[in-house]
């Protein structure tokens, strides 16, 4: 039973709801966060016990370069993802050009290509012994590498382009959703006040879409920062390279944890700054979804421009890698198509599916608890539960082992003392450890999108439902979840695709004789035999396509278009 609320009194709704809500949501949110935060906290704990202080040596030698390289890589990737993601999203939303409907979903496809796979593929294509340089040499009669200049793919520039190509879909996805949600009348008003289309874009459209784009960029940033496969392969010396050097070569896990923590703090500071900088900007859901978007009709020349803007990243980020994998997969098909391959495919699908659902469930719990109890504390909990995303996978894996093995051994001790039975390792070294690791890693993706979607549902919905006698849980199931169907689907699918690609944590945590497609591909690719694992690599990419198409449709459905 809710007290009658004055409709003008929206700002007071949160405490009102909280007062009438049992503590069970709050407590489950706290418990969930506590469990999910354990791996990150374990890494923080490690950071307090380094073998020795690594910083004086680092500062005197390689740290400045690690920092510069990391900074350059991040700026480059942000520039690429921002330029490609935002411009294509805007053109596809607002302009009519040939292939527009196709690009609507096709722009997302590079998301399905793991960064390490695209790096291997382009190295195969572009290095000296690859088809491109062979063709050039034949064409011009060159005989050795001394005769001509060719851009070095294994470089900072190469890594920036590779990572940018597979990560821009994050920005595209969120920017497009934001553009679709904007009321077209805002655009018309700006135009009628004398602004050009371009000026309107920068003064009205972009500022309104900024929160969404910022979320996309922060995902890009975190993925870039914790990428190891690509930078290692390209010999690009980022902070991650320093982290692994400290860990593996100096045997200083604590020091490595300190570097990881530093990187984590950097991300947290950046995200906080972004939020702070738009603290005074508040947006209200004044949109009307039934008002259709009037797309621009463009001149022929401009239409071609749109096609090129969209086709280029799609070709480079998806078509070329996929075709090249398909070629090798075909050549080595008989060798690759075996029971192991099928088992690995099944492993990948089941694991990723389970992890996507778990992550969604926890994401909804956290986001809804925050809606019910909108306190500073809840905000901190939300942020804390998302930190796993900003940590290199291998480091996070060690963070996962610590609490799981700790629990296993504690339980084992206890059972031995009490009943004389040994339970051994129950959780660590099992598929549970993998699902747990994926959840910790990708919770940021699902919790974040559910949270932002929930915020857009007006609190009067909750009030109506609650005053009609529904419990908070009942309200969630009958009111919110049906409204959030599109968001939930998207969140689950993004996590699914991410899990299919996940490599470093899977390698360390998996059970005996257990491979996913990603670990199987890595085993060959790391031995310079990509061709032998092209089929599983192709399957990772293909498995991403279906979810991506579904995802794109669920976004497109949010608005009818004239």
């Amino acid at each position, binding site marked *: 039973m809710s007290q009658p609320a004055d409709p003008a009194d929206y700002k007071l709704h949160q405490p009102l709801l909280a007062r009438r809500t049992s503590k069970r949501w709050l407590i489950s949110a706290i418990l969930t966060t506590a469990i999910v935060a354990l791996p990150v906290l374990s890494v923080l704990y490690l950071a307090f016990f380094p073998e020795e202080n690594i910083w004086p*040596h*680092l500062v*005197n*030698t*390689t740290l400045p*370069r690690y920092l510069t390289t990391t900074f350059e890589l991040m700026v480059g990737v942000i520039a690429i993802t921002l330029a490609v993601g935002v411009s294509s999203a805007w053109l596809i939303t607002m302009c009519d050009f040939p292939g527009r409907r196709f690009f609507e979903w096709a722009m997302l496809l590079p998301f399905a290509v793991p960064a390490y796979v695209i790096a291997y593929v382009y190295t195969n294509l572009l290095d*000296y*012994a690859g088809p491109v340089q062979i063709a050039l040499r034949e064409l011009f009669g060159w005989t*050795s*590498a*001394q005769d001509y200049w060719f851009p070095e793919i*294994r470089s900072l520039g190469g890594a920036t382009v590779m990572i940018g190509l597979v990560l821009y879909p994050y920005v595209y996805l969120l920017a497009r959703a934001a553009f679709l949600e904007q009321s077209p009348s805002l655009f018309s008003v700006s135009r009628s006040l004398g602004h050009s289309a371009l000026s309107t874009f920068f003064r009205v459209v972009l500022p309104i879409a900024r929160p969404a784009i910022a979320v996309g960029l922060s995902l890009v940033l975190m993925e870039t920062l914790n990428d190891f496969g690509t930078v290692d392969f*390209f*010999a690009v*010396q980022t902070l991650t390279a320093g982290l692994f050097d400290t*860990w*593996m*070569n*100096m*045997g200083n*896990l604590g020091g490595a944890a300190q570097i990881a923590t530093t990187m984590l703090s950097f991300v947290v500071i950046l995200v906080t700054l972004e939020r702070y900088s738009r603290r005074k900007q508040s947006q209200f859901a004044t949109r009307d979804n039934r008002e259709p978007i009037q797309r621009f009709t463009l001149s022929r020349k401009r239409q071609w421009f749109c096609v090129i803007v969209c086709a280029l990243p799609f070709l480079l980020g998806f078509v070329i890698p996929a075709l090249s994998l398909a070629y090798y997969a075909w050549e080595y098909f008989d060798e690759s198509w075996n029971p192991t391959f099928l088992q690995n495919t099944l492993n990948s699908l*089941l*694991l990723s*599916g*389970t992890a996507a*659902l*778990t992550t969604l*469930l926890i994401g*909804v719990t956290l986001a809804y608890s925050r809606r019910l109890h909108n306190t500073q504390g809840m905000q901190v909990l939300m942020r804390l539960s998302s930190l796993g995303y900003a940590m290199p996978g*291998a480091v996070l*894996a*060690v963070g996962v*082992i*610590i609490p799981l*093995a*700790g629990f*296993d*051994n504690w339980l084992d001790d206890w059972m031995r003392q009490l009943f004389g039975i040994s339970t*051994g*390792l129950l959780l*660590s*070294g*099992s*598929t*549970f450890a993998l699902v747990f690791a994926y959840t910790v890693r990708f919770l940021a993706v699902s919790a974040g999108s559910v949270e932002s979607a929930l915020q857009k549902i007006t609190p009067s919905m909750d009030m109506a439902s609650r005053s009609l006698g529904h419990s908070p849980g009942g309200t969630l*199931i009958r009111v919110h*979840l049906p409204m959030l169907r599109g968001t939930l689907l998207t969140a689950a699918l993004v996590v699914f695709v991410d899990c299919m690609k996940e490599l470093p944590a899977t*390698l*360390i*945590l*998996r*059970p*005996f*004789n*257990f491979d996913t497609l990603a670990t199987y591909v890595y*085993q*060959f690719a*790391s*031995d*310079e035999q990509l061709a032998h694992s092209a089929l599983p690599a192709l399957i990772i990419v293909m498995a991403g396509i279906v979810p991506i198409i579904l995802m794109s449709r669920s976004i497109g459905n949010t608005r009818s278009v004239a």
Partner: protein
Amino acid sequence: MQIKHVAAALAVASALPLSAHGADEVNIYSYRQANLLQPLLNAFTEETGIETNVVFAKNGLAERLEREGRNSPADVVMTVDISRLNDLVERGLTQPLENDVLEQNIPENLRHPEGKWYALTTRGRMIYASVDRVADGEITSYEELADPKWEGRICTRSGKHPYNIALFSSMIAHHGEEEAQAWLAGLQNNLARKPQGGDRDQIKAIAEGVCDLSIGNSYYYGKMLADESQRPAAEQVRIVFPNAEGRGTHINISGIALTNSSPNRENAIKLMEFLSQEKAQQIYAEANTEYPANPDIQPSGIVASWGEMHPDSLSLQQIAENREAAVRMVDRVDYDN
């Protein structure tokens, strides 16, 4: 929210193979790719009926073993590079093993004094030289790599790679830190390009004319010769045994260690014995073109055709102990820049 579906998926996932449980098995944590081990493990299972279970990862397995503690399922750790084996020993994760078969098959300098690890193969860190552009005998030692006459003519992989670190450790052991650093700076000065790629990539770079000299492990060259698509590149390159006239060529090992917590100790010991014996040592020699640790087994025909290797007698333990000094030296010289 369709809770039923979630529950069903969770149930399916928990039915995935958790860990293989059976009486006759041995569990392996491996830093080497599982497909490299498979022929050896298949031969082992065929002979003994003992099943093998493997987890392969490039890092993190020692941490996993450590945290799993006495309940860890792992029986043995298989790895390359002496420093990695030494890490396991220093963390107290391995147990000493006195065993007649192993002690007979593996020479004393290739095993831990208390049997906390045993080498299975050795590999020399060779100089690769261009057949066309480097005359026979023009380079004969690691020291000469720092000679300014090679300026802009040498390629290597990252100075931080364990194989290079081990070589640099041995330079520190022989010349002291100061002299070794001067040598490394000289070598860096001679580089034709920023260190990158693996050892095979350096052979390719010589074939492509990017550089004339490189350093790399013996078996990469052997494996490239054996692979039809890579043979043309390898044929552009000659292998030189460095310091053959003097202290000998720097070697590193791949090896195996029995874990402290090994639940299937007897089977693990059988595996270790098997890997030191003729059949397994021959597979290592033939399929992987490594030098067998067991002196009774000859290297493969290809490897033997390069001539006899005279290994540096420096103790592996000392190489492991100099690792950190070598890493810091690489940073100070800024080798990878």
